[in-house]
């Protein structure tokens, strides 16, 4: 599509900004239906076993307690595991909340107390006592590694590594070799809003479920299936989502439990998880990668051998693409990779921002830095020397790859060329200064999506799709797209998202929403324009200039052209003339035949080059990140203001990955024990320097209809490695485990 940009690409402020800064934006735990009960979940303190007895007498005596729901008294829910499958495609047998007395993981819900007030429910929940029969469990990752396996059925998005050449032989013959085991600690998403559900029982007995999710239609389908309801009986809403980063990709147990209870008690209920309970579901898997690299004396990569393992639960086989990225991104004639999962008695690990790549790209880029140093070559020069213009793993051309430009512009902006190669050679007073860099890569995806455009008598354009804006700026960029496509000022556009009743949109994630929902809105607006012009052309009482081909829609009004350039007609008047109250169009954007062929013939990725400065106190071993520059090649940027915030936000999370975040397992009980913000550190204001984001010009008509690649994850990829590599440059010490805590 050829888009002349007056709205797309402009640094517009968020259109949901006023709602958010005034506290008017309603999140999942915030509607207050009359007679609502509060539910507080009681979790299992053991990792594996069976409930023997539940003692709830004391809890039931707390005034205001209405019911204590357990596996023994819950109403009917679907029996078979397949009814609990969600759209994410994790193979295995999904966990069924309150299904029976068996315990599969520490933190598993065993009871939910419902009371008239939150305080009563909380107090009663503390009084529920449960006796368990304890069975052996393993929560130790090293032990789990001995049981690693390849699932017979793989996840739908899993990309099997494709070897080339003879990596083992080439490694043996290489003049320069590096080899090491790299490790990433498990991490928890920890969006600021805790997962919560408010269920409203409507007069007709249907349920309106306000849930913190990234996919209202996925949750609707899940609830209908798991609770044996028809889809008409469940509507899921999530107009505002207080962050998610992947924790809301799958239905979290609170939504099942709240809806089950509303069915049981025929009353509105709210179930909000506590912060510690946020550590009882999704998390980024712990990972190890064994990386062996071989190069010739001229710094040319000759061999790459990557073996990776991530953890999963006993009941599902979560898989990530962690080992493929180097094989794709580097021109190395011999390469192979292997991937397995290791089972533990925990909940299933899950997708967290840039799943797979955040782990695989960062760990690999740390190894690449080691190899550059082993070759005695500047790390940026080394990457340029081994640059691949194609997807080297699939031997496939790319729709675009402006990574060279990103490297050059990022380096220029950072001042990389003033860097001294020798570690520990750049000091400022007593502080050691280190400069490091890395590159990033992430998929550019496009999923079929529908959107509706409607013009009303008030002359406003109303856009609707079941997308979720989890803070990504979707409201704003869709308004910009509609403004552009329809010829409408931004302030006369309403965007409605976050409702399962709206036109079909896939679960938000993977950075595909901008490309996909954007294309759907674009099509729907064009279709609506065409409808309006056609209706006017048929209209006998419309002015003659408006009935011809020479009419244009600009600035929210119809204008004549040429000799009729002075004539105009408001959209409300135009609609009145056609005799209709509303005019509506719904369209679905999908790759189409040409798109599908293109997808088979060309690979598509976003790329980035990240540059970092750290300062290390040599006595205290404290690390401060003092500068970060990220140059991103992500096709068309819909809104540079919100896009830069997206990249910065991911860089903050990657700083956490590099230096702070680590979910620590108490192996005796199989529980993540640092389950709060005091002990699970996420970066705070004082940890984060000013960060510069550059968007490299990258024109790509093939990747998606609007030339958009998506920017939600790319900021994670490479940033943690750039920090790690800067720490090496400052100190001369290599750290292969993330997070890096030199003083610890």
């Amino acid at each position: 599509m050829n888009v002349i940009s007056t709205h797309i690409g402009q640094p517009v402020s968020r259109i949901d900004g006023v709602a958010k800064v005034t506290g008017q934006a309603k999140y999942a735990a915030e509607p207050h239906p009359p007679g609502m009960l509060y539910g507080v979940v009681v979790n299992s303190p053991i990792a594996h076993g069976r409930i023997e007895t539940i003692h709830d007498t004391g809890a039931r005596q707390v005034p205001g307690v209405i019911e204590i729901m357990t596996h023994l008294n819950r109403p009917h829910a679907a029996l078979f595991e397949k009814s609990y499958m969600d759209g994410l495609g994790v193979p295995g047998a999904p966990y069924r909340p309150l299904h029976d007395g068996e315990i599969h993981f520490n933190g598993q819900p065993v009871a939910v107390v419902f009371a008239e007030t939150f305080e009563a429910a909380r107090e009663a929940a503390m009084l529920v006592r449960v006796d368990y029969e304890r069975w052996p469990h393993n929560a130790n990752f090293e032990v789990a590694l001995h049981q690693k396996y390849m699932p017979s059925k793989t996840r739908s998005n899993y990309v099997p590594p494709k070897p080339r050449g003879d990596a083992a032989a080439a490694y043996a013959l290489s003049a320069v070799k590096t080899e090491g085991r790299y490790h990433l600690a498990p991490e928890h998403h920890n969006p600021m809003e805790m997962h919560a559900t408010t269920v409203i029982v409507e007069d007709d007995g249907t349920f309106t479920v306000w849930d913190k999710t990234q996919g209202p239609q996925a949750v609707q389908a899940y609830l209908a299936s798991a609770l044996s309801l028809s889809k008409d009986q469940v509507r899921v809403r999530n107009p505002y989502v207080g962050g998610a980063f992947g924790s809301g990709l799958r239905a979290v147990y609170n939504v099942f439990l709240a809806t089950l209870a509303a069915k049981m008690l025929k009353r509105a209920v709210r179930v909000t998880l506590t912060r510690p309970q946020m550590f009882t579901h999704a998390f980024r898997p712990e990972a190890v990668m064994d990386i062996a690299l071989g190069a010739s004396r001229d710094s040319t990569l000759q061999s790459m051998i990557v073996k990776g393992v991530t953890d999963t639960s006993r009941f599902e086989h979560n898989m990530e693409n962690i080992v493929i990225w180097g094989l794709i991104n580097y021109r190395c004639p011999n390469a192979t990779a292997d991937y397995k999962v290791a089972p533990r008695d925990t909940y299933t690990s899950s997708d967290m921002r840039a799943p797979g790549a955040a782990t695989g790209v960062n760990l690999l880029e740390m190894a690449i830095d080691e190899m550059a140093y082993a070759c005695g070559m500047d790390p940026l020069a080394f990457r340029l020397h081994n640059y691949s213009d194609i997807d080297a793993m699939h031997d496939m051309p790319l729709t675009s790859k402006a990574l060279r430009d990103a490297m050059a512009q990022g380096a220029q902006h950072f001042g990389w060329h003033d860097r001294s190669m020798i570690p520990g050679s750049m000091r400022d007073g007593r502080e050691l200064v280190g400069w490091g860099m890395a590159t990033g890569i992430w998929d550019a995806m496009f999923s079929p999506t529908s959107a509706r455009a409607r013009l009303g008598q008030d002359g406003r354009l109303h856009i609707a799709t079941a997308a979720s804006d989890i803070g990504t700026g979707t409201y704003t960029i869709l308004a910009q797209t509609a403004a552009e496509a329809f010829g409408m000022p931004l302030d006369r556009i309403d965007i409605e998202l976050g409702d399962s009743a709206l036109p079909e949109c896939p679960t938000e994630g993977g950075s595909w929403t901008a490309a996909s929902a954007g294309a759907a809105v674009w099509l729907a607006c064009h279709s609506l324009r065409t409808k309006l012009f056609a209706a006017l052309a048929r209209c006998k009482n419309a002015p003659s200039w408006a009935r011809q081909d020479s009419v244009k829609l600009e600035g929210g009004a119809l204008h004549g052209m040429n000799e009729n350039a002075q004539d105009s007609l408001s959209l409300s008047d135009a609609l009145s003339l056609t005799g209709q109250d509303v005019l509506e169009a719904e369209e679905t954007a999908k790759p189409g035949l040409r798109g599908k062929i293109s997808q088979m013939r060309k690979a598509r990725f976003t790329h980035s080059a990240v540059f970092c400065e750290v300062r290390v106190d040599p006595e205290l071993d404290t690390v401060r990140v003092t500068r970060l520059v990220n140059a991103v090649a992500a096709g068309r940027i819909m809104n540079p203001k919100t896009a830069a915030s997206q990249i910065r936000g991911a860089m903050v999370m990657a700083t956490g990955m590099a230096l702070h975040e680590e979910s620590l397992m108490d192996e005796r009980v199989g529980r993540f024990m640092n389950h709060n913000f005091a002990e699970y550190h996420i970066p705070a204001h004082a940890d984060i320097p000013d960060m510069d984001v550059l968007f490299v010009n990258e024109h790509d008509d093939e990747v998606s209809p609007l030339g958009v690649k998506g920017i939600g994850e790319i900021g994670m990829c490479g940033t943690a490695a750039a920090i790690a590599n800067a720490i090496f440059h400052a100190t001369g010490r290599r750290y292969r485990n993330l997070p890096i805590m030199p003083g610890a």
Partner: protein
Amino acid sequence: MTRESVAVPCRLQINGQDYSADLPPSVTLLDLLRERLDLTGTKKGCDHGQCGACTVLVDGKRVKSCLILAVSIPDSVVTTIEGIAQDGRLHPMQQAFIDADAFQCGYCTPGQIMSAIALLEEGHIHSRAEIREFMSGNLCRCGAYNGIINAIEQVVSRQHRNQAGEAA
């Protein structure tokens, strides 16, 4: 008798309105605002005083409302995010947050704004480093930290300009 059957008088002024009721002593100021008064602009992010999402002003000072029992601050003046816009006009800090793109999901935002308003009163605004230090009790998982500091600096410099204007 359980604690929940006890009720204690609670008297506050919230966003300029008098509030009085008998409450169980275990009701936090945060839960009073969110669950009993429908002032859901104040957010619950941890309920442990660790994240700052629940920051409100009590007698002009920023506090974490999840750590305060509602009945423990009789006759206090409470200001929440719903109480800072005047006559339908945004508070300068609210406008600056929009202009500087100082939020993404918006969940920590009311707490950040209330904290920032108090920060200006406290005067911890002499450098970006000082602002960062004194805003570090308000976590933001979307990582809007740069925007938040920019927003606060905008308001600070506008105040300085206004003061300079008045002095002249």
